[in-house]
């Protein structure tokens, strides 16, 4: 292990330069982020991820945000274990009816001010699962959504652009 750690000292970092936040996403955010709350929270945001019925593809790419290439935490964005610690809910999936109440309760447990980011095509409009007896559909039908990041699944770059838009709006 010592050798492994030592090699780490000699190599340059893998972490890549940040992308510019996505202009269209910035526009979507519009007034949803009041200046006052920005000042209160600073740039640092705690994110709670909620899988409300995804196929787990989105989760894989959200996970990737933590790897050395993207290193989400350097932007003051980090994943937390409880909605009570969170400023942002990152919601995936076509909100299954079996998860609807759990999502509502997670939203209620998140202290104000808070934002909801819907990740993936399913979270946007139900995706391929829209019209199922078992799905409520878009996340926005269940909780108010501030930002959509589209894709099936959105790659980490798209996720990063979206989240950076959130902190710089």
């Amino acid at each position, binding site marked *: *292990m010592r050798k*492994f*750690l030592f090699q780490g000292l000699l190599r340059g970092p*893998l972490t890549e330069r940040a992308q510019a936040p996505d202009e269209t996403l910035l526009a979507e955010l519009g007034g949803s982020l009041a200046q006052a709350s920005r000042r209160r929270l600073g740039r640092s945001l705690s994110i709670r*991820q*909620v*899988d*409300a*019925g*995804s*196929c*787990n*593809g*989105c*989760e*894989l*790419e*959200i*996970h*990737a945000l*933590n*790897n*050395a*290439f993207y290193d989400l935490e350097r932007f003051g964005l980090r*994943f937390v*274990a*409880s*909605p009570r610690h969170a400023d942002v809910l990152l919601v995936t*999936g*076509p909100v*299954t*009816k*079996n*998860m*609807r*109440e*759990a999502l509502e309760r*997670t939203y209620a447990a998140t202290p104000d001010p808070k934002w909801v980011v819907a990740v993936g095509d399913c979270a946007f409009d139900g*995706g*391929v*699962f829209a*019209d*199922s*007896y*078992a*799905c409520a559909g878009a996340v926005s039908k269940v909780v108010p959504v501030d930002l959509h990041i589209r894709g*099936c*699944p959105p*790659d980490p770059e798209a996720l990063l652009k979206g989240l950076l838009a959130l902190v710089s709006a």
Partner: protein
Amino acid sequence: MMSLRETMRSGREARHSKPWPRRVIDQTGWLRAIREISKGQGDLLSLWSDGAEVHMAILDHESSEIGLVSIECPDGRFPSVSHLHPPAMRLERALQDIYGIAAKGLPDRRPWLDHGRWGVRRPGGNSEASEHFGDAYEFLPAEGAPLHQIPVGPVHAGIIEPGHFRFSANGELVVRLEERLGYVHKGIEQLMVGAPLDRAARLAGRVSGDSTVAYSLAFAQAVESALGVEVPQRAIWLRALMAELERLANHFGDIGAICNDASFSLMHAHCGIMRERLLRAANVCFGHRLMMDKIVPGGVAVDLTGEGYIALLALLRHANKLVPNFVRLYGDTTSLQDRTVGAGILRAELARQYACGGFIGRASGRAFDARRLPGYAPYSDLPFELGASTEGDVDARVWVRFDEIRASLPLIEQILDRLPDGEIRTEIPRPNETREGAALVEGFRGDIFVWVRLDATGAIDRCYLRDPSWFQWPLLEAAIEGNIVADFPLCNKSFNCSYSGQDL
């Protein structure tokens, strides 16, 4: 007394079922088949329904043959499989929820997927509207003075899928774990009904996102079998290339995550880098990091270009250099071994009884791999080592995954060396009659079973997709018994069952 094989060949043959015959048998034959399976003469590969009949896919051990048997249930009842063979329990509970078909003698009659929130009962059968406020659910009791319960989920403390775990603990020791799943049930089976082929393929690729390649492959193979489609050689090899890349990506990601759950973040960081490099190479090759929708009925959607070829060679060079380091790092770190050795032991009898697939089964002495049996192209031409252990603990599952990584890397090399030229996709003909097909494909998690019935226009009449997790989730309950609560995340990650795949 008829053997299992003879039973599987009795009854009336259903028409156009490929590659395995499907036979409609009577109640006596059905009961005989169940008895033989419960005695260990064969594996139950799946149990499903089309609303009119209940079907079983069976692997007979003596002949190594797969067969499908069906029983008609005009009065909505059939003899329960699980009353003799418990692995069918959750499948039968799900049948009851979706189709209203009752398994006579089912030991556990509680609903499984239906949480009373759909606003409809029996969505696949004679459905009726209902309330959607949620049903009460009674967990199995664990009695005794010092016991306490710990409810966990459905929303978990991490970036993972939802499910509920109910622990009964005596101090730190888990006395009973009961899982309650179904939270991400999306009704895929019913969405499939009447779907045109391209939409159905997209649905199949989204049953469990981490296995999207394996699901697309299994679905495509089932359709191609039903229609007798000959897939171009180059497509077959490209499919295997994608399947091995997916296997590697998941094994790297999960080994890192397991070590992370044992507080060894160094491995997590390195595995995360390896996984990211791999997904980027996949993106260069096929235009999607998870290779979603790239395997389609009739072939593959994109060809491998020179650029992709070079990206893969670079990836292989990198992986071949680093994997021995990972192996050494894992094997030499005693604080890590301290957590993984002896934790979450799955006994070999259970793995065998449940026909538990993938690395979980192989780490508990069940040497099964769908690439070998029933086997499919191009693996018959591609020799590879099968990981194996009999220890059955978290450590064994990690080692089997390392074995699989060390097997997949040379497989990819061979595929790149021997990749045939030519077409990558062929036309899917219109059947003009009802056809059925099935497939068993080895995903990273284990064998995925897909059964499909196409109508005369070539659209889906019925499609059932059985995730390997159906036979792995129940075993996690057994493996965790006697471990401490704090080791549950570690044990759970070492299984890494799919929520979405089993909830369907």
